[in-house]
Each structure stands twice: as C-alpha cells, then as structure tokens.
C-alpha cells in the first residue's frame, strides 16, 4: 500500500514500511534511480570497471527480461566481475538529512559468487579475490564466494562493522535497503526484515550508489537489477 508523509518539508511516498521510500518531492530532494535504457558506457552515467582474469570480457547491459534494468554477465574465469558506480558522489550521511537506499537484485548462483550492493566512496574493486576490498567508506550489503551468508555492513576509514542477516542467499530477487534517519541511526533491512542498526561507525564522507558482482568459479554468472534508487532529503 502506497502512503505519503511529509519529512523535512518534503513529500515522501513510501510502500508498506515507513522506511521504504519510493519517491520524494521537495525543493532540495536528492533522488537517483537507475533508469530503464540508461547508458552503461563507462564514464557516461556510471564508472564501469570490468575485471577479467581470463581472456574474455565481463559486461553490463540494459535488461532484456521484463522489469529488469541491468544485466551483469561475467566472463568465465574465477573472479571475473563488474564493478559499477554512479559517476559522482552526491550522497552523504549528515545530521538532518535522512537517506534511503534500496535495490532489488538477483544473482543466478547463490554460493560461488560475490555480490556487493549499496553505497561507497569511489572504488573500482569493491571486492577483490573473494574478499571485501572497499578502500575507505561505505554502507552496503555483501556476500562472498563459497558462502550464502548475506551481511549488512558499514565501513568508516577502513573499519568494517558487519552483521549476518540470517537469510541465506538464493537465486530469487531480494530487496536490500538501508535507511539513515538523519539523527544518528542507520538501519539495514533485507526483504523487509531488520538486519542491524548502528548508531556509530558509519561513514560521513560522500558516497556513490554501487553494485559489484563476480563469479566465484570458472563459469559465467549473471546478476540482474530490477531497481536501485537512493533518496535523500
């Protein structure tokens, strides 16, 4: 059920949960959403980094399945991957400026793959060799190769706080959401369930919406993004 409310003078539309923001209207709203038909040529809308350990090329393209906006297809060598970030870093957790990040994403291999979705500082290898590799700061969900554990994580100056969600990764679409209340608490939700809340240890530098996906074996793997958006007041 879609409802609306006023937050900081902006009209916010939300769905089911107070934190699941869909759209906001206001004089200083910062709203980004991955578009249908967006240009994935690197340096246009996104910085796209393909990591190819073999001889081929990992790719990201517009979705060809109903509802999907992007399709990542890795090449067929272990660790082949795509690292995607919006060009620019327009978001920053700061007092008085609540923020919502959400993404609905699926992967076609639950165990032998790496996934990171959220926001981070500029970084072209958010995961490297099946290990977290966020250089400085971020708020994100991730899972690593050889496990189906999904973690909610916040990272400030290289120090990571991570909490297992208790939900095992599978090949279904999942909704990853992060909400910063603009006061001092950041909350992580997986498919509508609370994973963790933190009142410290989260970054305060500028961040960019980010998506990373890698194959964890010598086989092509795919990641489909139905929607990704970030709204800050």
């Amino acid at each position, binding site marked *: *059920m*879609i409802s609306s409310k006023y937050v900081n003078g902006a009209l916010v*539309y939300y769905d089911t949960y107070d934190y699941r923001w869909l*759209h906001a209207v206001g004089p200083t709203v910062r709203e980004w959403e991955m578009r249908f038909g*967006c*240009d994935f040529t690197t340096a246009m809308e996104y910085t796209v980094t393909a990591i190819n350990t073999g001889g081929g090329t990992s790719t990201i393209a517009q979705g060809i399945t*109903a*509802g*999907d906006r992007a399709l990542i297809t890795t090449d067929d060598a272990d660790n082949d991957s795509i690292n995607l970030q919006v060009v620019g870093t327009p978001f920053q957790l700061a007092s008085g400026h609540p923020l919502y990040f959400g993404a609905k994403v699926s992967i076609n291999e639950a165990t032998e793959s790496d996934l990171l979705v959220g926001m981070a500082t500029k970084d072209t290898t958010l995961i490297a060799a099946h290990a977290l590799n966020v250089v400085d700061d971020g708020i994100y969900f991730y899972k690593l190769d050889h496990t189906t554990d999904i973690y909610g994580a916040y990272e400030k100056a290289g120090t990571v706080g991570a909490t297992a969600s208790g939900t095992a990764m599978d090949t279904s679409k999942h909704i990853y959401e992060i909400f910063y209340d603009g006061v001092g608490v950041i909350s992580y939700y997986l498919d509508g369930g609370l994973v963790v809340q933190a009142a410290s240890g989260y970054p305060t530098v500028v961040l960019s919406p980010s998506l990373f996906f890698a194959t964890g074996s010598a086989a092509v793997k795919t990641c489909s993004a139905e929607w990704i958006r970030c709204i800050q007041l």
Partner: protein
Amino acid sequence: MSTSSFWKKHTGGESLVFHEHGNEARWYDAIGPNTRKWEMRLGSDLTTAKEYTVTEIGAGGTEVQGITAGIRATLTTNTDKWDEINIQLIGTPFQLAAGYPLYFGAKFAVDSATLSDFFVGLSATDTAILSAGADTLDIGGSALGFYALAGTTITSLTEIHASGSKTNTSDTVLTTNAMTYEFVWDGVDGVSFYHEGALVGRHTTYVPTVVLCPSIVIKAASAAARIASISWMRCIQLA
C-alpha cells in the same frame, strides 16, 4: 485539464497512478514498489547503442534533441524514397502479462500526412519494423502500436509474429499536427487503443506476450526527407 489519481491493485501490490482528470486511460506517472517507468528524456543521447538502437535505412538521416519548445527528439530521414529511421530503447523491460497493467503513450507530429510511413508502440527487438523499399509493415517479432502507410489512415495493431494480427482503424485521420497515440493493457486479457483520446478498438487477440521495448519508426514515402517531431513518449507498467 488537470491531474487526478487512482489506486490500482495488481500482482505486485497496489500502485498510485496519476492520470489526466476524467481520462483514466492517459497515465502521466505511477508510484509503486516495482513500477516500471520509462519516458524519453529531454536531452537524451540519441547516438546509437547509448540509450537507443538507432537504425537508418538510407544513411544520412539525423536524430537530434528537439530545438522547438516541448520537442524531445526530431527524426529526419534522408531524402530518397523509403529512407527510414528505426529507433528502439535498448533493453526489453516490458512484457504484457496477467496482473501487470501497462500504459504506452506518444505524442508526435509528421511533416507530411500522406507521404510518410510510421509505426509507434512496443515491439520485440527489430531494426526494420517497416519494410525496406516498400510502404508496408515488416514486423520481425511481435508488436503492438499504431501505424500509417503512405496515407492518412491510422491503424491500431496487435501482432504475434508468425501467428497473426488484429487491426482497427481510427476515425481520425493523420494530419501534420502533433497527435497522441496511446494504449492500455488491462492486465487481464485486452489492450485498448486510443488515438487523440478516442477509443480506436480493444484487441483481445494476437496480444504479444514476449518482452518488448518502446519503438518509433519514420519513413519517407516519397523522394523527400520526412520529419517526425516527438513531444513525449512514455511507458508505465505496474509490477
């Protein structure tokens, strides 16, 4: 003319649809948990393989952002008869399926009512929706939309490739004014087509079920450049 809204239940939940006051078949916007929404942007990149696949039959045409108030894109064919510009959004994110209502609309003008061919609507990936070297359709995959072929008759179409098609004729003829072409998939079993806001027909047969992308094609039906000026074009699906 003002804007109203209604709630629409569908497979993915319930969405808020903004529409023209008094006309629930003209959607402007929708807000919902998984809403699929595309609209040609002002200032969009019409270079092929960026946001759109642009195919010219008879090279030398141009596809540019509009320079007239309210125009998002201007397509100008080359100057030979049957020169053509075929534009499709990259990706095929839309699909008519039970429980997923969909709106498609476009407003555009052609500079000759009798010496042009056009198609506008949703189509499977297809670089020649109109035939090369003829004033005829050449739907390579499945499609639905409107077309006109070297005449002022405007026809609504649903077609499943290699299976069959259904058409209806609009009571309003093509002119060089900007005209509005719209259809609504009810999420059950039928597509209603509207030209200039008037019902052209409701199609319940040969409704495509494959993935589709917004598409527009303009063709010269004589040895002169033909121009299509697109005011807006959008597709909204509730999911």
